[in-house]
């Protein structure tokens, strides 16, 4: 499996898939997609990278421990839910703002923040399992 072609292509494929996963994540509110699916795509991207270039390369690329990424995702998901408390509305109520950047209206919401949290939890948790299984020595 570890052929020269695969090793050469894998980083580009990973980058492309990672980009695509973010695209899927962000468009999820209106088109098919969302945090869960985006997260799974990103995990597959990292799995490909890991199979091609070894897990230490993945760990270096991720910079943080995948479990920390997962925990951070859960944290911002909670934060997205708790934001509503500041406005006196029930927990997890969606809050929307529409800032105009360079003449384009960009809808931003606590729901999106929540979805990003979901994405990070999925990426972190499943990547850490896959990496730990793949690793012979280190965690």
């Amino acid at each position, binding site marked *: 499996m570890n052929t020269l072609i695969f090793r050469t292509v894998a980083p580009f494929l990973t980058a492309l898939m990672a980009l695509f996963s973010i695209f899927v994540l962000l468009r999820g509110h*209106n088109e098919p997609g969302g945090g869960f699916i985006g997260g799974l795509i990103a995990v597959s991207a990292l799995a490909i990278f890991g199979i091609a270039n070894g897990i230490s390369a993945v760990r270096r690329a991720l910079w943080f421990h995948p479990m920390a990424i997962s925990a951070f995702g859960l944290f911002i998901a909670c934060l997205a839910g708790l934001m509503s408390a500041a406005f006196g509305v029930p927990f997890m109520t969606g809050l929307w703002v529409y800032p105009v950047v360079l003449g384009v209206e960009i809808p931003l919401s606590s729901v999106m923040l929540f979805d990003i949290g979901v994405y990070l939890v999925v990426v972190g948790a499943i990547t850490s*399992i896959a990496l730990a299984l793949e690793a012979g020595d280190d965690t």
Partner: protein
Amino acid sequence: MTADTMGLTFLAFCLPFLGALIAPALTRLLGHHAAWPLALVPLAVFFHFLGFNAEIARGEIVTGGYAWVPSYNVSFSWLIDGLSLAFLLLISGIGALIVLYSGGYLKGHPHQGRFFSFILMFMGSMLGVVASDSFLMLFVFWELTSITSFLLIGFDHAREASRRAALQALIVTGGGGLFLLAGLLLIWDVTGVTQFSLLMSFGPELRTSPFYLAILFLVLGGAFTKSAQFPFHFWLPNAMEAPTPVSAYLHSATMVKAGVYLLMRLNPVMGATPAWETILPAIGGLTLLVGAVLAIRQTDLKLMLAYTTVASLGMLVMLTGFGSEHAIAAAALYLVAHSLFKGALFMVAGLIDHETGTRDITRLGGLRRAMPVTFLAALLAALSMGGLPPFFGFLAKEEIYAALAGGSLRQVAFTAAAVIGNGLMFAVAFAVALKPFLGAPTQTPKHAHEGPALLWIGPMLLAVTGLVIGLFSAVAHVLLTMPLASAISGAPQTITISAMPHLSLAFGLSLLTVAFGVGVFLMLDRARAAANRLVEDIGWGPDRGFDQGMTGLVRAASAISRLVQPGRMETYMTATFTVIALALIVPPALYGEWPRLPVWPAGMPFHELAVMVLAAVGIAAVLMANNRLTAIVALGIQGFCVALLFLLFGAPDLAFTQFMIETLSVVILALVMTRLKLTPRDPRPLREKIPDGAIAVACGLGFALYLLKVTQGRFDTALSDFFNLYSKTIAHGANVVNVIIVDFRGTDTLGEIAVVMVTGLAILSIIRIRKGRVSP
């Protein structure tokens, strides 16, 4: 109550917890001098509540609070009447002195900041217990006191005895709290109210309810465990493993009085029934005698005092349930008097221990020259505990005898119990206050000298307060004890007792008590030997029973665990899937609710059929594969076909997810296989494969039948209509699936991703264990 006072009162309840937050940092900064600023916390609380004194003395009740969970009618609300106020003042007042005392006692201890933090948290919980108006708040604070006292008793966690005592206290008092919760819920069910202030008018309903006895037993289960009534008294002396400031605080004014507080709080609505007036005095009287006899037996200063606390609590419970005219007044007086003298004596015991290095009364003597201030404080407190005029304890004791004495058999029996109990406590009081100080000086582990001001300021102030209240009893009655007694009885009470000795039956009984006490004191060694023989003859005690119970529990738990967790993956899988198959197939078989056989859809497009055939081929490949890796990949074929079907039937999100899941499962399964170093082939012989295969087929068949049945039922479109209608308008999203996940049912998703993360952590640690490495 104006908005300002309400905010301030709320702040007063929060203040100890805020203090607990800053205590460690403050102690790191100031060392043991942090006690001075930290003592300001309870002091501020004390003075805030002192401000209510005038209103309460007029017979008013102060209530206030905030809605907490309005949908469940749960509020954070407080009720301050004479009873609550007396407790609030005792807790915060003695609390301030205890903070100062711990400053000196634990000087230089590496975890002094943590200790301050615990004790302030405990104080906050205790304040919450005695001021709660709503049942739920009472329960929350009640259990908080159990938890914080666990931390305090186990403070010296390196010693096993400490840990055992802490666990014991937690199990006994925390378990009792669960009884209390059930009792409170029953009260709610019977009366329909969740607040004590409203409950007060429901006395007749409660007393005549068919659930009265159940409620009574549940509430008593909470109160008796907390207040260390026989046979639950054993945790209290064991809790002496805690540093002395903890003992002085928990066992004088706070923790153990919580149960008594609860009984007093419920007395107006639950009291005056035959059950109440039988159980409470009987258990209380028994506890009084048991505690007093066990106290005589001890030679450790703290243990002697601990058992007299048990006895005093018995006395309070007895008086609360006795039901005579003076009984409530006597309980009120004794409650306050006991908090003052017992707090002082505990601190004296700790002071002696701190300065000499021992608490063993047989090794102490002649300290009066070395520790004159301590001696004075001990003497003043003991005079009050012994019930000699003009001390506060004397007033309490006179009132007790006035309440109990009489001609009936019941009155004679309880009077006798009180005289014996009080006499023994008299002897213990003076044994603690005189024996270490008089006689010839002895060799002690440390060279004895007077302790620093931080240590003696607390006992001295408490002991002097006992004297001052005794001298100016008229003022104290109006401000403190009369509102207290009125709140306990539910009707205005007058207390006139003063320190002036006057000829009466009660005074005669007092003299008898003193004579008996002096007698026991003079023959203390012989009395101790007699009490020891008695206890050894009985042999078994609830303390040992607790250990036996705990051992039995652990044994039973491990036996059950071995039964259901044998540790073989095959067993788990077989059990799980057998149960799934049975759950799917047995109910329709029992009720004859099989689905109709589906008809072959007419005009089925070719490509749909092709996908299904492909899925079937995938399954066949799994079965025929003689290599595990091939089987896993073949399983993926089937999964992709299902994803394709989802796509064809208009569920792109589902299909998308299914694709990713299939890909990743193949990757992860392959990784697991290589990691577990499984043989490439399945080594099971045919006779094992057939039952496993049967279970698999039954599961698949069950699911197929189930899905058929579900799709044949009427489909309720209410939910999908709702989501389709509001997805765009309310949640601003066109993708209904995603909007459901992240918005409509977002809280579910939050729970799910938490599960994903925790599962990840669990798998990670299992993998690490397999490597033979213990993760930190």
